[in-house]
């Protein structure tokens, strides 16, 4: 048994160091259901801000980019199970997630907001939310935020934000909460979206929303995290980032340096 453990340890070590030297290929987990960051086109390809950033980072690192579509629910488990090496999916850097995975520095920071039918009353208090139905994507930082702050609300958890938007339009939920940029392009800019609007303030409390969205990596792959950090800084400096940002947004989505 001891021998076996030793063998295993040697093997892991050898494997680990072999991988640490160079990242010729980086596999990123992407979601494909969160426009404008990540959306699945009619022909099945995935496009969006996250995707362009992933490709730009790989180019910067001279690595081959492999993008793997994964449901949001299973993102972190799939990363830990080595289905891919990093997650680029507008994932907020939160304390809870840092217990399981590492993050690079942020590559964007967009506040979360509530949206509802135009003219709907809104108060961010547990008393007001009593019995109100709030739609949110399961396992997001917004899910945690509403679960912690509005326990008396009826929280409806969806697999994707697109489903939550559908149910807001159908009138099955009173409010939804998501990244403001996602609400803009996934709900307000779509057909029938003119009946809806943001309600309440921009939400940025780091306790729930962390300090922006980063790329999640396994804790053992410190070298990859470091390389990605350098690459983020590089594309910020050389104008690639701005070019990609302007393709999707009319405002700055990085926030303070």
């Amino acid at each position, binding site marked *: 048994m001891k021998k076996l453990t030793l063998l295993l340890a040697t093997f892991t070590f050898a494997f680990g160091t072999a991988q640490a030297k160079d990242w010729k290929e980086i596999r990123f987990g992407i979601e494909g259901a969160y426009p404008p960051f990540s959306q699945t086109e009619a022909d099945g390809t995935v496009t969006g801000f996250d995707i362009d950033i992933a490709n730009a980072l790989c180019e910067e690192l001279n690595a081959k980019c492999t993008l793997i579509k994964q449901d949001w*629910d299973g993102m972190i*488990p799939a990363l*830990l199970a080595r289905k891919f090496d990093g997650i680029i999916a507008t994932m907020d850097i939160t304390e809870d997630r840092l217990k399981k995975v590492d993050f690079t520095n942020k590559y964007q920071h967009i506040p979360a907001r509530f949206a509802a039918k135009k003219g709907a009353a809104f108060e961010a208090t547990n008393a007001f939310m009593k019995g109100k139905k709030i739609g949110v994507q*399961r*396992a997001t930082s917004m899910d945690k935020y509403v679960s912690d702050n509005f326990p008396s609300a009826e929280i409806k*958890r969806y697999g994707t934000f697109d489903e939550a938007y559908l149910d807001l339009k*159908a*009138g099955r939920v009173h409010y939804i909460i998501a990244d403001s940029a996602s609400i803009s392009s996934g709900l307000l800019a779509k057909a029938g979206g003119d009946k809806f609007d943001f309600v309440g303030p921009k939400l940025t409390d780091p306790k729930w929303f962390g300090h922006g969205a980063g790329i999640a990596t396994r804790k053992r792959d410190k070298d990859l995290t470091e390389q990605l950090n350098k690459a983020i800084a590089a594309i910020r400096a050389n104008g690639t980032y701005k070019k990609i940002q302007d393709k999707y947004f009319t405002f700055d989505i990085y926030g303070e340096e």
Partner: protein
Amino acid sequence: MDFSIIINEYQFYLEGLWTTTWLVAASLLLGLIIAIPAGILRTNNNWLIKGPIWAYMYFFRGSPLLVQLFLIYYGVAQFDAIKESWLWYYFQEAWFCALLAFTLNTGAYTAEIVRGAIKNMPKGELEAAKAYGMTRLQTLRRIILPGSLRRALPAYSNEIIFMIHGSAIAGVVTIVDITGAARVVNARYYAPFEAYLAAGILYMCLTFSVIYLFKLWEKRQHHI
């Protein structure tokens, strides 16, 4: 491996177990109410009677339950006429949509079981009923239904088990059933193995309870 999270979040699983149980039980009961007349009418020779029943069974047995649930939950919400009518009061609830989809689905499958059992009636029993001078209704009530339903029992217990397992898709329309509970727990702890294993065990308990009850029932039938 950390199973303390299951113990910490047991109330999610209890809630899920309860939701799965009542949702499946209610849809099975309502499905049976549809299935027995549908199965009987399906054996009728008049196409005006058996035609619509055939179409209903063909659709619900021919397409996946998940698609049926999506059609009812997301599809119906697309029609303003329904959204403005009293029907919306029910269709806006996820549990109602799931109950409706499950009921219609199990109703179609069970009707097929009933039809098969009636088709396979021993000819002799029917001839004997005729010889006694029973009317068609009397034959149905006294001979066909008791005999065929008893023969349908093993097939029906399979349908119940399929329904328990099939109900796992209720979670996709925000219902917290057993699978829904596992998803929430997985989302909180990123521990899919523990979360889904606990769900699997709960489904197994439900399934084996059903099998056990049917064994008892079938045994009793044989004693009569």
